[in-house]
């Protein structure tokens, strides 16, 4: 598999009106869904989600070992799947990588701006869903650069479908801890009681309730990094 550079894209600081929709099945998502004004600082953002190759390189260089390795990289990354997004990583695993590369995970608000931009696009590529621009119902993960035509306003690719992406922070409502996931995935479970699958709109997040690391990792859950810029 031909490798490629996951280059960084500059995003100039701006303000936008954050408004998000969510589906938590039953229950609520105890965050402020807006509309509210949000300021985005100057950022660099990964063009693609972090790949297996990038994450393998990180492991090789740092010897990173999670405290709880249950399901960690359960898919066993190898050269054949180097360009696929790394999955089976918890938020802690993602943060460890991001720190090593000098970045961090995007906040929920930043992620939405990176995907939707100042024109508040519904999907990274525009306002109309187009299944040919994302891995929406593809039965398996695909290379992060497989849908380059589906790039967002700033040039970020694979923001909708393929794999969910962690955002920063653990939210705590006093009784529960949860994180917010973005973008949707290739996978579609069949029933309405399942987590809603497929590619997701820019203004959608899903509440992942945190448990042990084995439960926090999934075959459809990866991440991308952002970097504070001047």
């Amino acid at each position, binding site marked *: 598999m031909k490798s490629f550079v996951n280059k960084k894209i500059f995003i100039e600081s701006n303000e936008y009106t954050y408004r998000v929709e969510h589906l938590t099945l039953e229950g609520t998502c105890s965050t402020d869904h807006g509309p509210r004004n949000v300021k985005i600082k100057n950022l660099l953002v990964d063009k693609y989600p972090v790949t297996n190759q990038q994450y393998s390189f990180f492991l090789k260089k740092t010897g990173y070992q999670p405290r709880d390795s249950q399901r960690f990289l359960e898919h066993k990354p190898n050269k054949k799947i180097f360009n696929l997004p790394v999955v089976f990583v918890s938020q802690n695993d993602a943060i460890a990588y991001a720190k090593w590369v000098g970045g961090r995970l995007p906040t929920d608000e930043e992620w939405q701006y990176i995907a939707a931009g100042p024109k508040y696009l519904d999907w990274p590529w525009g306002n109309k869903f187009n299944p040919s621009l994302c891995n929406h119902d593809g039965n398996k993960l695909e290379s992060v650069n497989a849908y380059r035509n589906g790039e967002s306003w700033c040039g970020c690719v694979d923001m909708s479908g393929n794999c969910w992406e962690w955002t920063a922070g653990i939210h705590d409502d006093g009784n529960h801890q949860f994180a917010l996931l973005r973008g949707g995935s290739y996978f579609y479970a069949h029933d309405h*009681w399942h987590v809603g*699958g497929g590619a997701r709109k820019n203004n959608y997040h899903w509440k992942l*309730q945190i448990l042990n690391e084995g439960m926090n990792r999934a075959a459809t859950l990866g991440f991308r990094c952002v970097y504070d810029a001047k």
Partner: protein
Amino acid sequence: MMQNKFIDKKKSIDFSLGNLNLSLDLNKNVFLNELNFIKNINNELFIIRVENKLVPKNKYKIEKVSKNTDDNFTVISIDFSQNFEKDFFKGRISFVQKKKNIIDFIFQLSARWHKDIPKKVLLKFPFIINLHKNKNFLKPGDIFDGKKRIKKGVWNLHEYPPSIISDNLGIESLGFEFYDQFPWQANYNLGMSEAISSENFEKFETEVQLTQELTDIILMKIYTSFKGREKIFSLWKENTRKRYDLRKYHDGNNRWIKKNYLQHFMFAYGEEAFDYKKIEFKINQIIKEGKQFGGYDSILFWHQYPRLGLDESNQWQLYKYLPKNYKTIKKIVDICHSHKIKFFIPFKPWDIRSNESLDSHAKSLEKFIKETNIDGFFLDTMSSLPESFLKIQKKFPSFEFCSEGTPREQRQIETLTSSWDQIGDIRRNFKVDINSNFFRFLFPEHPLNLVSRWSVGSDKDALIKRAAFNGMGMVIWQDIFGCWLPFSIEQKKKIKSLKNILKKYHKYFYGNNSIPLIKTLSKKIICNEFSNSDGKQKIYSIYNFGSNKVNGRILKLPIEVIEFKQIYGKKVNIKIEKKQNIFYLLANLDANDVILVNIKFKI
């Protein structure tokens, strides 16, 4: 009107068929002796419309009237026919009596269509509509509060308790049951049981598919009682239960589920159940906190939903992802067992994948039982027990199944021996009503745990009262998939008190002699009666649903009272009064209060 004749004078049900007027005489012996042919009543049995044309009612030709009787069985039949345009109708009305107090009224109809092309036929039943109009008519579960009929009894199964007409004293009573064997069956009873409960029954007109053979249209079971509506309920209950094979409930191996008064819903993703720092489940803490409710009898562990579907992992794989995988569950189960608490895990019937079957899930369950020693399987949205799971019970005889929905159909009720009585809907301004659950009284051996997951505040108070009023256990569910909705300290105390009462008086609450909505002496009081097997002691659950205090006579008691005491609820002043050799229960009961009173009778 016919109803008044029945109630006040002749004790008869009258109706007409064209020029033929009939009266079913229900004298005090209530044996079906003869049909009286009377005149000048306007209470038609039925009206037929064929392709929107009314069939004239005066053209029916009586073909035959027959009567067969022996010591055990009486049948009276009237065969009639009618030509209408180029079609030909035949019908039969029958009365069948096999035992005292129960008479079957059967109406059948057939059609021979011109050129064998069926036409649209609509039927209307003025005779039944007139019953419905009677001022003393009570739809199933209704009571009369002095001004209007209000619903105070509910059920959720494919048996329909009878509608009742009583005399003004509430003593002489007739019950009318329209049994639906299968709710989607053509012709048979036409959804009458549901229709008669609706406000628009006067307009009830329904379509039938007629063939050349007589088809059953109406099968109305008439129950007769000279001991009030309580007796009608008992007759219906006895008659209905006869159809059921309830052996499984009385198999000694399943008895523990009957004492599952409090089930805790352990939602894994929250501070109540999970220690985020130690990365472990707080089972000891949960058990300790459960003592505030009187102690949990079982715990239902819940971690698959709403997480399932994030990737391809199925419901069983999610157990492997827990800390130390199955060993976590085994450890929790062992701790629960050391406190005599049973342990359930849930099944997600909606998560059966295309490469899976119920058999494969049964195998997974069997493996899980062997590895963890769990006691029960919660069936979630599935309220029936498939054969694959029934086989599990043969291997593990004390293993139990429970579902979130009360089973509705016969086989489900026979095999699934416990369930929730789940009420409520977050989206519809749901108010917890305090009323009688007829399923609970029809099948008292089937334990129900009351739950309304989204109810808070005063609705939680009402939920506890409803559980007490029906003598049933509860589900203690405070973390609703990530919304923390706890019970207050006061509510916990009330639940603890209720659990202790259910435990102490188990034989009363789960015996077979309980009756819902017995007659009371106050229009704002409803009452259920629970009785031990010899009838020497009874528990009355009493609820003042009015907006004012009720002070005075509440119940007329069947016989002489030896002892009485209030066993649940805010302490009220209760007394027994004897007047002209009749015993009355008096109480000073606040509005919206539920109390339970235990009375010992002299027999």
